[in-house]
């Protein structure tokens, strides 16, 4: 078990434990925000695992999480938006955490990777991940109660 796998294990327990707690309890908006953070953490864990097992093809799994995770959150923001209108907003900490956590994981991975096409792939996954996470947090913050049920 190398350092990358230890980091993955720590991130799994310290990150996904609280996410599970927040997704199962509390106001709806916080639950969706926790799900959003969960996709981010799982993507980072998968990147660490791919490096730790020395299997570059495993990064494809992380790429799919980075692409589809925010889509899932947007589904909730879209279809549960009217329900979570009155819930308290998430502070800016969630977004800051997303950026910092991604940087803290992706940059060491890039340093270990060295220059090459897979470095660009890593940076690409990191960029998609942060962008998607920030945008879906924004969509979540913008969700508000509607006057009537809609057909949209």
């Amino acid at each position, binding site marked *: 078990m190398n350092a990358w796998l230890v980091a993955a294990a720590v991130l799994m327990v310290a990150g996904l434990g609280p996410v599970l707690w927040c997704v199962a309890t509390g106001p709806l908006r916080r639950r969706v925000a926790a799900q959003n953070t969960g996709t981010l953490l799982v993507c980072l864990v998968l990147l660490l695992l791919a490096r730790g097992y020395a299997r*570059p*093809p495993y990064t494809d799994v992380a*790429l799919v999480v980075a692409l589809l995770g925010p889509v899932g959150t947007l589904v909730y923001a879209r279809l549960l938006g009217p329900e979570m209108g009155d819930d308290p907003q998430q502070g800016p900490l969630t977004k800051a955490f997303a950026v910092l956590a991604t940087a803290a994981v992706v940059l060491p991975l890039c340093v270990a990777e060295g220059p090459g096409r*897979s470095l*660009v792939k890593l940076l690409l996954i990191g960029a998609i991940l942060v962008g998607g996470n920030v945008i879906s947090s924004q969509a979540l913050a913008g969700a508000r109660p509607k006057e009537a049920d809609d057909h949209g």
Partner: protein
Amino acid sequence: MRCFDGRMAWGRVSGVVEVAVWWAVLFALWLFLISTVDALEILVGGLVSLVGAATAAAARRAVTDR
């Protein structure tokens, strides 16, 4: 009438440019995704990027022109 034609022609040119730009971006993405580069990879990547570029332009039109 001429003005109308001109606008149509401009629309067609800008549509082609839009698809071309998207194609270039998506093809570059494909080159970073794959691990080994050979002729077949480039051919498949070009076709896939073309599908992606056409969809991107169609989606953009579906959102803005209405």
